[in-house]
C-alpha cells in the first residue's frame, strides 16, 4: 500500500478527516511490482477512508530529478487494446466517497521522446486535488535496451544480478536446458517453427529470475549487426585480450562477474570446468558478425522464424565461437541471453511492421496452430510445436502429458516452473501461442511484461 499523503492536502483540500489516496499499479497495493513499459497496465486509485464527498484528483508524472526524462501516460477505465489506446499526459479521476477503486491504465510515455527509466523509481506519478499533492508513487519504466545504451549504473545492477544467478547455478542449468531442448527449441524436423516462441519464453524465464534479484533490471540486447564497443570489455561482459593466446574471457577486478577468488566460471562436468571461452569478440567491438539488420519481408510466422534463425541468429553464435558457438554450452555464457534478446527483438520488429503478426489465431501470428495428433500432420513434419501446447521444460504440472513434440520429459534438473508475473499467476505453464502478443495489444489479458526500447505499444 502506498498512500503518500500531504499534510497540506489533509489540512486544506480534503478536510481534516485524514483522507488519503492510494495509487495501485497493476491493481495491487504492493510496490514491488511498480514497473511497466510502453504497454499499458491496469491500475487503480481510491480513497483509503470513506469521505463525505467524492474527491477529484488529477494524475500527472514528473521525474525524480532534472536528469530523469522518462514520463508516463494515463487512460481512463479498463486496460485498452492497441486499437483503443489514446493516452493522456494528465488524467482527471473522480474518486467515490465510498472508497471504491477507480480504474485507469498507465504506460511509459512514447512520444515525442520514448525515454525509459535509468534508475529505479525515477518517474513519479503524482495525484493532486485542487492543485495540492495528495499522493505520489515512484515507478520504473522498465524496457529492454540496447546493451550499448545502458548507463554504468544500469550495467552494474544488471551484472550484480547476473552474478547471483551464476552463483545459484542457473547458467549451467540453462545450458543443460538449451542442450536438452535441441529437439524442441531448434527442432530440426522439416518444420521447427517453435524456435522464436520457445526462445521468447526462455529469455523471459532468465529475465524474471534477474528481476527477482533486482526488480529494476531488464534484459538488454546485443545488436550483432553493429559494433559493440562497450559490451565486449572487461567492465561489462568480459573480453579476450588481443595479446592473449588463450580464448579465456577476462573480467575487470571490479566487475561483479569476477569474485575475489574466481572469475565467472562454467561447470559442464569434469571435462570442462573453467573459464568462459570465446573464439572471437574483440573484432565485434567495431563491427558485428552480421552485416546489417535484416529487412524481414516475411508474410507469416513460419517464414519469419526460418529467416531470422538461419542467417541472422546463426551468424552471431558461430561468430562468437567458444561456448556460445555450440548449442550444448551456449547458455553458460551471459552473452547468450543478450544475443537471443536481439533475436527476439528481430521477431518483435517484424511483428510491429506486419499486419496480423500479433494475432495468435492466424498463420501470420503463429504456426502450426492447434494441437498435435497422429493424423494431423504431414509425414515430413511429424514432430513440431503446435500453438496450443505447453512449452517444455516448464510443463511441470501434475497429470500433464509431455507434449508430443518433446522427445521426453528430461531429467529433473532441466524441468522447472516458470517464474511468471503480471497476467499469469505462479506455476503457469507457458503455451506456445501465449508468446506471440507479448504486449497484449489485442487485449486478451496475456501481456508478458516486457517491451523493447524502440518498439511502441
Amino acid at each position, binding site marked *: 500500500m502506498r498512500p503518500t499523503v500531504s499534510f497540506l492536502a489533509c489540512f486544506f483540500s480534503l478536510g481534516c478527516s485524514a483522507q488519503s489516496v492510494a495509487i495501485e499499479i497493476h491493481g495491487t497495493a504492493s510496490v514491488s511490482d511498480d514497473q511497466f513499459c510502453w504497454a499499458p497496465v491496469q491500475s487503480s486509485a481510491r480513497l483509503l477512508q470513506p469521505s463525505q464527498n467524492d474527491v477529484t484528483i488529477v494524475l500527472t508524472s514528473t521525474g525524480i530529478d532534472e536528469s530523469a526524462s522518462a514520463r508516463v501516460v494515463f487512460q481512463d477505465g479498463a486496460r485498452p487494446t492497441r486499437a483503443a489506446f489514446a493516452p493522456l499526459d494528465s488524467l482527471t479521476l473522480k474518486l467515490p466517497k465510498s472508497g471504491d477503486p477507480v480504474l485507469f491504465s498507465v504506460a511509459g510515455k512514447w512520444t515525442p521522446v520514448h525515454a525509459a527509466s535509468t534508475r529505479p523509481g525515477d518517474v513519479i506519478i503524482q495525484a493532486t486535488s485542487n492543485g495540492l499533492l495528495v499522493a505520489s508513487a515512484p515507478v520504473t519504466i522498465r524496457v529492454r535496451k540496447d546493451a550499448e545504451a545502458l548507463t554504468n549504473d544500469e550495467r552494474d545492477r544488471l551484472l550484480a544480478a547476473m552474478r547471483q544467478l551464476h552463483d545459484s547455478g542457473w547458467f549451467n542449468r540453462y545450458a543443460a536446458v538449451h542442450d536438452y531442448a535441441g529437439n524442441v527449441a531448434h527442432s530440426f524436423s522439416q518444420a521447427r517453427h517453435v524456435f522464436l516462441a520457445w526462445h521468447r519464453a526462455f529469455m523471459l524465464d532468465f529475465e524474471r529470475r534477474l528481476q527477482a534479484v533486482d526488480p529494476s533490471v531488464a534484459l538488454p540486447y546485443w545488436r550483432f549487426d553493429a559494433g559493440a564497443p562497450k559490451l565486449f570489455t572487461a567492465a561489462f561482459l568480459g573480453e579476450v585480450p588481443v595479446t592473449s593466446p588463450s580464448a*579465456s574471457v577476462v573480467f575487470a577486478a571490479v566487475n561483479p562477474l569476477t569474485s575475489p577468488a574466481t572469475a565467472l566460471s562454467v561447470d559442464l562436468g569434469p571435462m*570442462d*570446468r573453467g*573459464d568462459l*571461452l570465446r573464439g572471437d569478440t574483440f573484432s565485434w567491438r567495431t563491427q558485428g558478425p552480421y552485416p546489417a539488420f535484416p529487412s524481414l519481408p516475411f508474410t507469416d510466422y513460419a517464414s519469419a522464424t526460418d529467416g531470422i534463425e538461419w542467417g541472422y541468429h546463426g551468424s552471431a553464435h558461430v561468430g562468437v565461437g567458444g561456448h556460445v558457438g555450440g548449442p550444448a554450452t551456449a547458455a553458460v555464457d551471459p552473452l547468450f541471453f543478450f544475443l537471443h534478446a536481439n533475436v527476439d527483438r528481430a521477431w518483435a520488429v517484424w511483428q510491429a511492421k506486419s499486419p496480423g503478426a500479433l494475432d495468435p489465431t492466424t498463420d501470420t501470428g503463429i504456426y502450426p496452430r492447434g494441437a498435435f495428433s497422429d493424423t494431423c500432420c*504431414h509425414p515430413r513434419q511429424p514432430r513440431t510445436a503446435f500453438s496450443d501446447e505447453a512449452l517444455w521444460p516448464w510443463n511441470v504440472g501434475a497429470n500433464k502429458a509431455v507434449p508430443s513434440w518433446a522427445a521426453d520429459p528430461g531429467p529433473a534438473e532441466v524441468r522447472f516452473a516458470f517464474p511468471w508475473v503480471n497476467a499469469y499467476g505462479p506455476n503457469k505453464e507457458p503455451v506456445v501461442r501465449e508468446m506471440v502478443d507479448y504486449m497484449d495489444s489485442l487485449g486478451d489479458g496475456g501481456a508478458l511484461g516486457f517491451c523493447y526500447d524502440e518498439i511502441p505499444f
Partner: protein
Amino acid sequence: MYRFAIAASLNLFSAFVSAAEPSTDPVATFYEQARPQIDPLVGRSLDSSLPMSDRVKAARELMSSYPNAAKDLWKEWLASAPDLAQLAVSDMQARLFSLHYGHAAHGDNDGTGTPVPVLARDTLRELMATDGRPAIRLAALNALCQAGDEAALQKLGEEVVAGRYQPSIALRHLSAKPQVGGAVLAELAANSQVPTTFRLDAVKAMKGSSAFNPFLRKITLNASASSTVRLEALEVLTTATGDTSDAAIFVLTEPDKETRQAAFKILADRVRASDGQPGQLELLLKLQQTNERQPRQLRLDSTTANSIDQMIKELRSARDDHDK
C-alpha cells in the same frame, strides 16, 4: 554464362518449392509468392555486367530476407567474384550452428536429402582443402574453426606449421574448443619446426578449461618436447589443478639437473601458495623418501634436497602451531 547460372539456380529453387507441400507449408508458399522479389535479386547477384557493389547488395538481401533462395546460390557465388564468394562462405558459416544437432535437417536441399548445415559444412571443408584462391581457403577454414569443426581445427595445425595461418588467431580457435583443440595444441607445442615463442604460446593457450589438463600432462611427459615448453606446461597444469602431484612426478623423473630444479621451484611455489593445504606435507615426505631410495646418480642435487627438507620443517611447524 551467368544466364545459365540463373537458370540453374531457379531450377534448384523450383525444386525446393515443389518438394514441399505448398498447401500446408507456409514457408514454401512464402517463397512461391515472393518469386517476383527473389528472381530479380538472383539475377542481379549473378549479373557480371553490374558493378560489384550492386551484386553484393542483392546477394546480402537474399541472405537476409530469402535464406532458402540464398543457399541455392552458394555454388554460383563461389564460382563468381571474390566478394560474392566471401558472402557465400559467410552464409554457410551462419548455418553451422544448427549442425550440432545430430539429425539437423533445416530443410532438404533441393530434394537430395542433405540437411543444409551438413551441406554447408561439407562445402566449406571442400573449399578449405582444395579451393585455388588462398583468401577463400582461409575464409572457409576460419568459418569452420569458429564453429569448432574438428577437421578444420586439425588442419589449422598444419597451416600454422606451414606458415600459412596467423598463429595468434589459430591459438584462439584452438583454445576455444578444448576437446579438439587440446590435441592440436599439444602437437604444436612439441613440434621443433615451430618457433619456440609460438610453442610456449600454444601451452599458454591451454589455460581456461580443465579439459586441457590431459594434454598439458602429455606435454610435461613428452621427452621430445623442449624443457622450456615442458616446464611451461607444468606451470599451467599445476596452476589449473591446484595440486602438486604432476610437479612431484616431474621432479622425480627428470634426468636433467637444471630442468629438475626449475620443476622443483614450480612445486615449491605451489606448496607455499597452498598455505598448508592437507596433503602437501605428506607429498613432500614421500618425495624425500623416494629420492633417498634412488640410485645416487639419479638423486636430486643437494640444493633441491635441502629445500625439500626445509619445507617439510616449515609445514610441520605450522601444523604443530595449528594443533596447539
